[in-house]
């Protein structure tokens, strides 16, 4: 693989690792504060899966980068400009409906994406994808169930679910540009993303229908995560997450 392609493969792994890491970190905020102990357990399950996936993707990214950085080096020593997650996953938790809106929109996309990644010719990414598919199928299904429960629950939960989707909707277009700027490597490993946007729109529309929710109106998409230009929400998240390793940079933990 040429250095340029290898660099793009690093970039792809970082984008996927950062998506999982940042969303996992957001879910950690719920720990001990969820609407019920059962929901607390569900959200920690989702968070644990994502942190696990982040570790795999970032470890691989570190190997591709070849600068001796491991998963922690990448998670804790990069600045916000070097984080490549999509803007959707860094959005604040808000209320439970907003968290569910984010998770539903993201994991529905993530599942379709991983199914394609599992068919590429990059052995490591394929292996991570295959393992993650099992987990993310559950994420997509549990979050869709909650969208339906809240959408078709009480008038209050319906409104809150609608507001949650409304907050997140401007960030969905970015999901479908995950390959932007790294098209060569995507082609090289055989990653075919041509059908996932349609499938995603169909799945989302079907769930919202069952939830008695209107599809949010089209709007101008907001982009920037994949090139390191984030929302205002990422900085504080990173400051907190990275505080120990950055303060004590000679320490092992």
């Amino acid at each position, binding site marked *: 693989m040429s250095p340029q392609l290898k660099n793009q493969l690093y970039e792809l792994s970082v984008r996927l690792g950062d998506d999982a*890491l940042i969303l996992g*970190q957001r879910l*950690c*905020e719920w*720990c*001990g*504060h*969820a*609407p*019920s*102990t*059962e*929901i*607390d*357990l569900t959200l*920690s*399950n989702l*968070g*644990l899966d994502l*942190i*696990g996936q*982040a*570790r795999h993707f*970032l470890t691989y990214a570190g190997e591709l980068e070849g600068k001796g950085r491991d*998963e*922690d080096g990448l*998670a*804790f020593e990069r600045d916000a400009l070097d984080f490549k997650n999509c803007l959707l996953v860094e959005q604040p938790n808000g*209320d*439970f*409906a907003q968290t569910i809106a984010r998770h539903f929109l993201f994991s529905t996309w993530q599942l379709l994406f991983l199914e394609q990644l599992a068919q590429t010719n990059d052995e490591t990414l394929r292996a991570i994808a295959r393992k993650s598919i099992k987990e993310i199928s559950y994420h997509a299904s549990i979050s869709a169930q909650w969208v*339906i*429960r*809240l959408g*078709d*629950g*009480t008038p*209050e*939960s319906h409104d*809150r679910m609608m507001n949650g989707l409304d907050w997140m909707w401007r960030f969905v277009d970015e999901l479908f540009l995950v390959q932007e700027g790294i098209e060569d490597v995507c082609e090289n490993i055989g990653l075919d993303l041509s059908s996932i946007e349609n499938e995603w729109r169909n799945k989302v529309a079907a769930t919202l229908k069952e939830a008695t929710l209107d599809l949010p109106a089209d709007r101008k998409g907001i982009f920037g995560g994949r090139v390191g230009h984030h929302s205002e929400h990422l900085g504080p998240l990173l400051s*907190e*997450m990275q*505080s*120990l*390793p950055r303060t*004590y940079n*000679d*320490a*092992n*933990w």
Partner: protein
Amino acid sequence: MYTTELKSGSDGGKKRSKVEIVEDPAKLAAFEARVAADEFIEAKDWMPEAYRKTLVRQISQHAHSEIVGMLPEGNWLRRAPSLKRKAILLAKIQDEAGHGLYLYSAAETLGTPRDEMIEALHSGKAKYSTIFNYPTLTWADIGAIGWLVDGAAIMNQVPLQRTSYGPYARAMVRVCKEESFHQRQGYEIMTVMANGTDAQKRMAQDALNRWWWPSLMMFGPPDDSSPNTERSMRWRIKRDTNDELRQLFVDVTVPQAEYLNLSIPDADLKFNKEKDGYDFGEIDWDEFYAVVRGEGPVAKERIKARTDAWEEGAWVREAAMVHAQKQSKKDAA
């Protein structure tokens, strides 16, 4: 994590009378004989009202302790210093939530609904382990909690696997397995820190200084001020006295601290050859009782966090219920 039985001045249940119920002597004698023969009492078996009341109080306190105990550790989840540590800590807190659920279920078999127990926690009627009213100030506290707090919990819980109430004993079997993992993980964090940089060593020693005495208090008041101990032991709700377990904990933990080159913050701590155990200093019981009364350093924060989560989540629980009702109507139609 375990809480020893803490008297709260109220039984936490609304329906029960404060007047001591006079039990049928024949039934009581048969019950006492079964318990003395180490038989398990099951939910549908006859039991004296005081036994039921004590168990609901103890099991629900234990459940509350698991749930409130998620908070001090959750405080460091977002700042865990490596992704591996973050995953381990999240899994540990998740175990605690799971313990809380089994224990609430075990308590529910005695006829008190979970919502009623949770209400008693939020109103301050029900207690939870005093230990969770102390703040977690550095990452070493996460190590100290695993090592000392879970270590003390194990000392308390291992005998409870043979407690006389079947559902409680069975819940304890699973809880104990997971707690011993937690204890080892905590000690491992401490080992790394105690052998780390000067800053890490300082945090490790400071965590031991702050958590040592509150950990000893976890075993509850001294035996001579623990009026229920005798009856609870006879009923096999307890299997060892508070002081016996506390002594065991000290004897096991002091060599572990020595191995880490950390010093126990007790000038009176000394090995006593005659009793083959450590003598240790006087516990500040005024502090203990103040914390039991709800005057611990972060007691307000802990209860506020729990009540906020409960109140802010009310609409979610309601929506889930309404949706389930709609579904069952649809299914019936």
